[in-house]
């Protein structure tokens, strides 16, 4: 059992989302950086889709009633365990009775915490992701509050082996790390890569130029559904109405105000605003780390480049997975 002593700002149970139900208006949701969640799970021997905790800005304080193997990644939280810095990007042994305080994010905004075995909450429509708007999934359909108790499934053999090794050596954590940021090819700091959207041609030449030339600032209108950006107004060549259709994570849609919104995994299933661009799938994680008021630029890439980046990252992950399997037998 994991006791939630303090919940943090917005701590939710997430897996890789609830696909298959958008036709009924049910959002996909899931970890905002699905790749980071998969890597955290991999590190503790879980299936990539096991339920993890997603933290935002201020992390929770958790007390473990039993020994556990955990791993976390994402933003730079000043996390501690029994008063000592909590190692990141690797398996960490938590002894029965110990308390982990995830502190606050010094840079970045979000982090993902995997626990060997995965968090044991009921599957709702095939997923353990918290669906706040409908009040279902995750832990009682809502973010964690003080006093909550989380159950965990039994860890995999690999996790048990790592735990035993760490215990025998009286070590807190392994020396090896697995960092999602090192896989594939990263964009320069402060940059996310994006490709043209379906309505690119609807926008004025100024808008097309400004999108990739301007420095954009994230606003406080930001949540798990999307982030509104402040910058030059993006206008259409002539007013045009779109027929509502499905949207995708990363889509940059532009309402009549001209201020673009970048859609994130908890986006609505249907949208009706022109889509000037789409953020590359591999850079969604970086986007979700932007704090309100932070600046970001878009770098123009082709769809082919975006998919090559996607495949390169998956190849790297597959190699790491193989390496880990060999190492831990």
């Amino acid at each position, binding site marked *: 059992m994991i006791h939630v002593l303090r919940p943090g700002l917005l701590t939710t149970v997430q897996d890789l989302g609830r696909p298959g139900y958008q036709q009924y208006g049910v959002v996909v949701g899931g970890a905002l950086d699905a790749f980071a969640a998969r890597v955290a799970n991999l590190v503790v021997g879980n299936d990539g889709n096991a339920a993890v905790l997603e933290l935002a800005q201020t992390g929770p304080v958790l007390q473990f009633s039993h020994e556990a193997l955990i791993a976390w990644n994402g933003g730079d939280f000043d996390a501690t365990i029994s008063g000592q810095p909590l190692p990141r990007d690797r398996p960490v042994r938590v002894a029965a009775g110990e308390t982990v305080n995830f502190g606050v994010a010094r840079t970045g905004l979000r982090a993902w915490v995997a626990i060997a075995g995965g968090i044991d909450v009921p599957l709702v429509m095939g997923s353990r992701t918290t669906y706040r708007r409908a009040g279902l999934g995750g832990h009682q359909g809502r973010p964690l509050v003080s006093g909550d108790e989380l159950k965990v499934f039994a860890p995999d053999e690999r996790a048990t082996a790592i735990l035993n090794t760490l215990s025998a050596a009286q070590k807190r954590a392994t020396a090896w790390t697995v960092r999602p940021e090192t896989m594939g090819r990263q964009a320069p700091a402060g940059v996310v890569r994006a490709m043209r959207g*379906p309505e690119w041609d609807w926008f004025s030449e100024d808008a097309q130029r400004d999108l990739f030339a301007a420095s954009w600032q994230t606003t406080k209108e930001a949540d798990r559904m999307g982030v509104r950006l402040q910058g030059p107004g993006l206008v259409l060549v002539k007013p045009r109405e779109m027929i509502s259709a499905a949207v995708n994570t990363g889509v940059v849609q532009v309402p009549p105000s001209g201020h673009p919104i970048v859609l994130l995994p908890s986006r609505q299933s249907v949208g009706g605003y022109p889509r000037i661009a789409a953020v590359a799938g591999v850079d969604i994680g970086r986007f979700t780390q932007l704090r309100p008021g932070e600046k970001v630029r878009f770098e123009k890439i082709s769809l082919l480049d975006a*998919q090559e980046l996607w495949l390169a990252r998956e190849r790297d992950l597959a190699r790491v997975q193989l390496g880990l399997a060999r190492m831990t037998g």
Partner: protein
Amino acid sequence: MQITPLGDSALVVELGDAINESTHLRVQTAWRALAAGALPGVSEAVPAYTTITLFYDPWAVVQAGAPADGIVEWLGARVRERLKNPPKTAKTKPRTVEVPVCYGGESGPDLGRVATQAKLSVEEVVKRHTKAEYRVHLIGFAPGFPYLGGLPKELVTPRHAKPRMAVPAGSVGIGGEQTGIYPQATPGGWNLIGRTPLRLFRPEENPPVLLQAGDIVKFRAITPDEFAKLQEARP
């Protein structure tokens, strides 16, 4: 038919450029051919008014045989092939779902506004609203929320300039040419003309909704007493 990329992990299959019955039927037919499991690496096919959007994992599509530098073309070819030779499915007549609605009063505070706008009596608005047949074009905006086509022209009423902070669950609204039913209590700007006691979103059931794209909806006027009797418990 056009196939357009939507970012690096979705394709939009366009089957028309206007909202109408024939496009809707084309979307429904194509959707049955492209639905779950029909295409490798595709996790979801989501129908809307004129489109079907396919969500895919580029890695999974390459594992299934697509060339790394031609994922979109490879998948697009599979879509066209599939639509040219659709699997044989029994022709099904659309489902007609009757939705009981308590019109006016507390349940429909804007019924009078719609009547004034239409230059009709309140009774006549209810008569015309219940007489029409509505097609569920798509479900979206909120879980279980149906976008309905078929609103009689005279009932078209502009939305409120300032949305209500809370619209009760089950409210039947008119927003411009559109009409729909709010499954959950949410903010909303449509004109509320009545309320159904039925639950539109049923997460414990499969499918988790009362109405699905393709269904025909008929409204039936009920009294406040009937509303109370039919009111479904919301878990």
